[in-house]
């Protein structure tokens, strides 16, 4: 069942001297219970899409239906179904994490009893219990962000917009948040997530879209995106080799004094032999989403130019 449907969605900002086309006729469907990741460089259009779908911004053209409700014509009906972690959102400096979660749930009309149980649960799941009674002013940036995410996830809203939810968090905290997000989708909530951490998108998403210059360049799974490269293995030489030697194996580039080849599984034995012959240590692993993303977005930019 499709719960978010965007058709011909465009947005042009006309505030500066030249209009900026942030979204250009974007079509997108997101199904219920899926975790959908939106990837793109800064200014690619991710946040503009979220702002329109979350009823914060009016589109220039096109429509977004959330649970069959048009977010422009029926915003109140759409808003009943959603909760949002805004990009770079901050807390009320004078409230504690427990108060943030409790008060936000109460304002949204959640009963006192449910609020109590959800607040206790999310504080524990997000590792916030030791800090639950500290005012936000005294919390680190990562803990503040965790509190904001906890406040939104505790709503158990049918649709969750998470705009860079793990920004500034340490790796442990990120993994805690991932767990809670997974729980939300297993409960039936749908999540639209934007992130610059591609490992996060790879770990979490059922489906993703790559956006560049307001256009969707790719829509599918992370595995399918990686397979579009035609090279599924990353071979890293702990030293420098001449690119001409390796060019026939695939894509070659240098990274922090190492030579990296993105290639096929079949080429691995030959490359291993080459490394042994030269006495260079090699590391073989699967291609990461980041490489596929860089190649795709890079290609998009080249085509534009």
């Amino acid at each position, binding site marked *: 069942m499709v719960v978010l449907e965007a058709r011909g969605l465009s947005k042009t900002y006309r505030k500066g001297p030249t209009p900026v086309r942030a979204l250009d006729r974007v079509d997108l469907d997101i199904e219920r219970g899926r975790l959908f990741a939106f990837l793109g460089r800064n200014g690619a259009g991710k946040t503009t899409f979220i702002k329109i779908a979350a009823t914060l911004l*009016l589109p220039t053209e096109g429509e977004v239906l959330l649970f069959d409700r048009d977010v422009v014509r029926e915003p109140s009906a759409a808003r009943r179904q959603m909760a*949002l972690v*805004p990009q770079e*959102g*901050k*807390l*009320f400096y004078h409230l504690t994490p427990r108060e943030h979660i409790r*008060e936000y749930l109460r304002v*949204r009309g959640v009963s006192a009893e449910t609020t109590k149980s959800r607040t206790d649960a999310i504080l524990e799941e997000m590792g916030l219990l030791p800090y639950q009674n500290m005012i936000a002013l005294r919390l680190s940036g990562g803990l503040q962000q965790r509190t904001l995410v906890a*406040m939104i996830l505790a709503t158990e809203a049918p649709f969750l917009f998470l705009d860079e939810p793990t920004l500034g968090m340490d790796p442990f905290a990120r993994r805690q948040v991932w767990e809670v997000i997974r729980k939300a989708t297993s409960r039936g909530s749908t999540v639209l997530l934007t992130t610059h951490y591609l490992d996060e998108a790879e770990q979490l998403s059922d489906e993703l879209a790559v956006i560049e210059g307001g256009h969707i360049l790719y829509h599918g799974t992370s595995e399918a995106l990686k397979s579009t490269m035609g090279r599924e293995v990353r071979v890293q030489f702990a030293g420098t080799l001449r690119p001409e030697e390796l060019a026939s194996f695939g894509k070659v580039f240098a990274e922090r004094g190492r030579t990296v080849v993105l290639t096929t599984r079949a080429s691995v034995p030959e490359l291993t032999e080459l490394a042994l012959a030269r006495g260079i240590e090699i590391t073989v692993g699967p291609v990461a989403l980041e490489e596929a993303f860089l190649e795709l977005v890079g290609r998009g930019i080249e085509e534009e130019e």
Partner: protein
Amino acid sequence: MSVGSQAYAAVRICYFNGIIPLWRSPLLIAAVFLTPFSFLFFLFVIAPHALFPYGVVGGLLFTALFTGSGMLNDCAYLRLERQLQQVFVASPVSPLGYILGMALSELAFSIPAMALFLGILFLVHPVSALAGIGLVGLLLLTWLMATSLGFFISTLFAQLREIWPIGTLVFSVLAVLPPIFYPATEIPAAWRWVAFLAPSTFAAQLADRLVGLGGAITTGIPFVDTPYFDLAGLLGFALLFGAAALFFARWRER
């Protein structure tokens, strides 16, 4: 959400955005009280003592009017700096619930200062219980008008730096220049009509009449010289700014 739920949301917003910060930082009370009290002290020193009750009523109205300035700054700060208004927009909370909640928070900050000024008024110029109730009603209407205007202005700008000078300008023009701390008749006759461009003039004249102070502008036009004209003027501005906050404020960006 039903009307009842929205009202409850407003009370809850007032609790966490008004009561809790007051409880944790009681100095906020002094901050609200300080400016009008300074004006009053200044008047006490330089003006004839017969004008002191005008100054006390002025302090009350100034406090009620400056809830609008607080509303403007707080709403702009929550929207632009902390992105928290967005969290409420993308939720079942209606614009009315949010605006009312924020306005109630501002009222919570101002109630201690208003109570102090009311106390001073009862000491220096005793008024009847009925007049006292009327004065409280007038303060509430002034608060509604000022906070509606504050919210409306807060949504018009994209930068905090643009909003601060505008807020200071608007609310200084509303709360300092008009005849709030002094009788309207002190304004030169040729310029008295200008005073009626400010809603605070209507509020001040009505307040002075309620507590039995003279000094309202007389024009010789029957309706204009009555308290009903002042009430109608204040109500008109309150409705205008209320409509601006509810229907023309940018709850959603364009």
